[in-house]
């Protein structure tokens, strides 16, 4: 991969086929997870956290007013990543206008939140004993992808 860099408001990176295939797969799984909410999946508690953790009535009203729109936007954000890795040549150059770059940054966060739940990361970000090494490597790699995108966005304005 060549990490994200920005020129004239556009963020660009290059992904190998392996990288793009993994990222698109994870983004698609996260979109499906969000669209199926509410389920008992604990990762949803972090994707759609409670605004009022100590007030169930206020929380229910908040979810009623915001939940549908928020889940739809989160799923759409993840699908922007899926679509970037559709049919085409590899390695893949990903070119993001500012609005899509922000959607990528949000979706990368959601993917990392789900992986962190699967890895059972503790409060210091350390994985549980016996955590899946391959998943941990992907999680750490995605942190680097996101950091490069944020720094590219940050340099633009």
């Amino acid at each position, binding site marked *: 991969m060549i990490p994200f860099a920005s020129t004239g408001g556009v963020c660009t990176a290059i992904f190998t086929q392996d990288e793009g295939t993994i990222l698109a797969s994870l983004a698609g799984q996260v979109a499906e997870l969000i669209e199926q909410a509410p389920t008992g999946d604990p990762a949803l508690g972090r994707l759609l956290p409670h*605004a009022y*953790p100590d007030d169930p009535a206020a929380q229910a009203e908040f979810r009623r007013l915001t939940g549908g729109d*928020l889940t739809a936007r989160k799923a759409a954000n993840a699908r922007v990543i899926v679509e970037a890795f559709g049919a085409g040549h590899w390695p893949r150059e990903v070119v993001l206008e500012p609005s899509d770059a922000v959607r990528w*940054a949000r979706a990368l966060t959601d993917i*990392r939140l789900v992986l962190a739940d699967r890895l059972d990361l503790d409060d210091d970000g350390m994985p549980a004993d016996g955590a899946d090494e391959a998943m941990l490597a992907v999680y750490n790699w995605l942190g680097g992808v*996101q950091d490069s995108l944020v720094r590219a966005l940050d340099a633009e304005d």
Partner: protein
Amino acid sequence: MSQTQEVADSRVDSELDRPWVTIVWNDPVNLMSYVAWVFRTYFGFSRDEAERRMLQVHHEGRAVVASGPREAMERHVEAMHEYGLWATVSRE
């Protein structure tokens, strides 16, 4: 109006005016660079102020990032949730 009455009234006023706040909580997933960028671009903080509040979240576990009417705080919290940050609404 007596002095005592004025004091009592101001206490009632401060209770009614006590603002709602948006709190962002620390989590082990979100990158420091990302949290500072969200604070700067969404709330319009300067780079220094965004960095200061991000570090407050990181070191103290939470930071108040906005205060005002409840409806506005709920909009901020919803926006933070779309960014993947862990945010709550409460009374200051």
